[in-house]
């Protein structure tokens, strides 16, 4: 071992030589499209990498939102976003802002806010409080913040009655993510009810954070600890079981980001990553195998749908579209936009907030014009961003499936 970190001596550099400078990534970048502060993925990635000996030659890489649109677009297999995430981690190593350490501790936020949910929510709704937070911590006053619940998902699971029907299909592991455990518990509950309706015994092991927010802020050490702990927790539910997640971005952390960005090479990560399925991916696989109950109630609705950047990065297409359109009457309009702007915690930061809003502007407009009452998106922070900026209620695809099966609201 040398004393250099993985990010300084990463393997992703090997993909650098595949770059033919074709600029395809430049055309896909949603950030450089709206601000000259970010010179584009090719420039701060494959181009600048040739001048880096550990440290970046300038700070423009900090404006990369890590949405991954560049890596996805690259026909040569250059891991541009990964290179940039690594370069940023090296750059911020010795002067990590307190703000970036705070916003990436999602479990901590949930743990503190749940017991005092009404007070926390009220405080986050108050302009003067947010102004102080912006000044002191650097989180923009208008940035979307999660709503705390008085009951966690774990609390609900303990108190709810056991499923009436016995499981016919065997056990499955449900990975809800921090947001699904503390803030968006409704989505988790609906997902569990749908899986139970399909005949699965849903196992929900105690689970912590996947570390994605820490990773995207360059806090690789903490993120690695988090993701490995989570892998052990998910494995504790049983060997070889399929793991299903409603948290689009966190599923991506397990499937590839922890390995490709931070170089985590542990057996438990590969095991969990290979078994993880994003919820719509899982349900569409069932459908294609002829094993999905398609006895859906009609729902005449046109839905604006945005696939989050970190869901698209998983390279599986957009299974949610085909899945939702199995419901009679449902017509989906895809946003066609790379990213909503928030990109995890990027759009919360006071110096990035305006950029994030500009990145999402076309999406917010499209959502409002397509259906002012309901939009669908697979990841929590993206939903908060779309809701806050368009005023349109935004839900996970599982909400429509839950409704179409005629299942009761979770109590």
């Amino acid at each position, binding site marked *: 071992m040398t004393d250099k970190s993985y990010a300084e001596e990463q393997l992703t550099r090997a993909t650098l030589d595949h770059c033919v400078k074709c*600029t*395809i990534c*430049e055309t896909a970048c949603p950030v450089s499209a709206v*601000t000259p502060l970010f010179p584009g993925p090719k420039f701060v990635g494959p181009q600048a990498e040739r001048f880096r000996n550990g440290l970046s030659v300038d700070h423009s890489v900090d404006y990369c939102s890590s949405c991954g649109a560049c890596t996805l677009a690259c*026909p040569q297999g250059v891991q541009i976003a990964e290179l940039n995430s690594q370069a940023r981690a090296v750059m911020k190593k010795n002067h990590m802002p307190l703000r970036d350490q705070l916003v990436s501790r999602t479990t901590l936020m949930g743990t503190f806010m749940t017991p005092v949910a009404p007070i926390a929510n009220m405080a986050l709704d108050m302009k003067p409080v947010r102004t102080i937070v912006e000044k002191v911590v650097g989180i923009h006053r208008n940035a979307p913040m999660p709503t705390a619940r008085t009951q966690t998902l774990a609390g609900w699971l303990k108190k709810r009655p056991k499923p009436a029907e016995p499981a016919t299909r065997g056990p499955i592991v449900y990975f809800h993510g921090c947001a699904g455990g503390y803030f968006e518990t409704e989505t988790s509950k609906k997902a569990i009810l749908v899986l139970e309706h399909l005949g699965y015994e849903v196992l929900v092991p105690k689970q912590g954070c996947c570390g994605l927010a820490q990773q995207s802020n360059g806090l690789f050490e903490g993120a690695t600890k988090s993701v490995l702990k989570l892998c052990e927790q998910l494995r504790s539910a049983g060997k070889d079981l399929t793991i299903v997640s409603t948290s689009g971005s966190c599923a991506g952390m397990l499937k590839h980001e922890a390995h490709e960005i931070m170089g985590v090479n542990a057996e438990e990560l590969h095991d969990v990553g*290979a078994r993880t399925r994003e919820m719509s991916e899982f349900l569409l696989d069932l459908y294609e195998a002829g094993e999905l109950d398609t006895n859906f109630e009609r729902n005449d609705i046109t839905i604006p749908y945005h696939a989050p950047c970190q869901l*698209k990065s998983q*390279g599986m*297409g957009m299974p949610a579209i085909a899945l939702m359109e199995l419901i009679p009457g449902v017509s989906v309009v*895809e946003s066609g936009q790379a990213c909503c702007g928030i990109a995890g915690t990027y759009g919360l930061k006071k110096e990035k907030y305006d950029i994030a809003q500009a990145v999402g502007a076309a999406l917010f407009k499209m959502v409002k014009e397509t259906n002012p009452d309901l939009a669908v998106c697979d990841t929590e922070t993206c939903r908060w961003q779309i809701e806050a900026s368009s005023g349109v209620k935004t839900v996970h695809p599982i909400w429509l499936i839950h409704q179409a099966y005629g299942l009761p609201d979770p109590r």
Partner: protein
Amino acid sequence: MSKIVVIGAGIAGLTATLRCVAAGHQVTTITKGIGGLQLGQGTMDILGYMPNRVERPLDDLAALADEHPDHPYAILNADAVRTGVNYFAELVGEDLLVGDPERNVFLPTAVGALRPTALAQPSMMAGQLSDGDSVVMVGIRQLKDFYPGLAAQNLARSTLPDGGRAAVRATYIDLPARKGEADATALTYARVMDDPTFRQLFVTAVKKVIEPGEKVGLPAMLGLKDPNSWREVAEGLGTEVFEVPLQPPSVPGMRLNQTLVDKVKNARVRWVYGSQVLGGVAENGRLTGVVAGTTGHNVTFPADAVIHAPGGFESGALELDSYNHVFERTFDLPLAGADNEELLHGNYWGEEQPLFRVGVRVDEQMRPVDADGSAVYENLHAAGGIIANANRWREKSGDGIAVASAVRAADSLSTPTTAAASGAMDSKGDN
């Protein structure tokens, strides 16, 4: 209805996908990234040089086939090329491609040469110059990649198709696309040109530097999404304008690519973007599925037939290792021309490099064949840059081969249904 998997999303993959959709198939298109269309000029080349400049590309295909009996155009013939080109033109519409596949036009490039192509974007067509034309090439100080002086000087000394010359001068305007940006790309300009307010600023600035009676040559950046942007500029200036394609990011290429990708997505093709195809699953000489490496795990997409349109060397579909061994990365298909002792010779400016003719040999149904001429897999068809025996760069034949082979492949798919039917009659695959 059959399940078709198309590999690749360049000009061949997108054309094949839409042709299969039109035939009522259920299509999955798997692509490693954005296809090569937006790296091109946004035009449709059929045949430009052989080696002299070609005026009537479809008429000259026969002569090319005589000279190179293994050339893809020898297998496809002029009718197939006409069908393919017309189909493609119909897909993108008259806002994006006009012209006549029978006759080449000669359009100024960014270095001031005249380039032959068959169909071009309407915004480029005024670049067909005649003897005595007065032309001004207008650059923008804050736009990189376009040097009007270079273009003007070369163009002024070029002999035009009618044997004459044009008077060409160069000038600049000063108009940043975004505040504080000194070296924007054409794409940045194209995006702001979609905004009528900026368009007006642009027209006002150009008006100040042009003389009455001049045709105006402009870098290809007159709007990305708004197909009428260039017309408004021409009307505002009160004269004819023509766009000159630049190096990538190519705005005209992006227009074609985005139009086709939108069509593919709206047709509810399963669009698997960002994953590489690793190989196939075969049974009794047929492919039954295609394996893609998505994150976390591999996925097998079931297929009744497969259209393989991954491109050639430029996209990594063909690889050359350090032992001078060329191989096809996805299915390890047999390659024609790969056993040449000197695939690359040292004379960069000399004779053509044999490596560039390497690819898969195909039958009439565009199925890759082995040395004996039998199909490697009964239901695997190829399209575009992976097909052997063309020197696309020199001939300017890549687009024509791509669309003709894509349409032929899609029209002669060997699915279990057609395979059963062809027991009774020989399916040639011509439409």
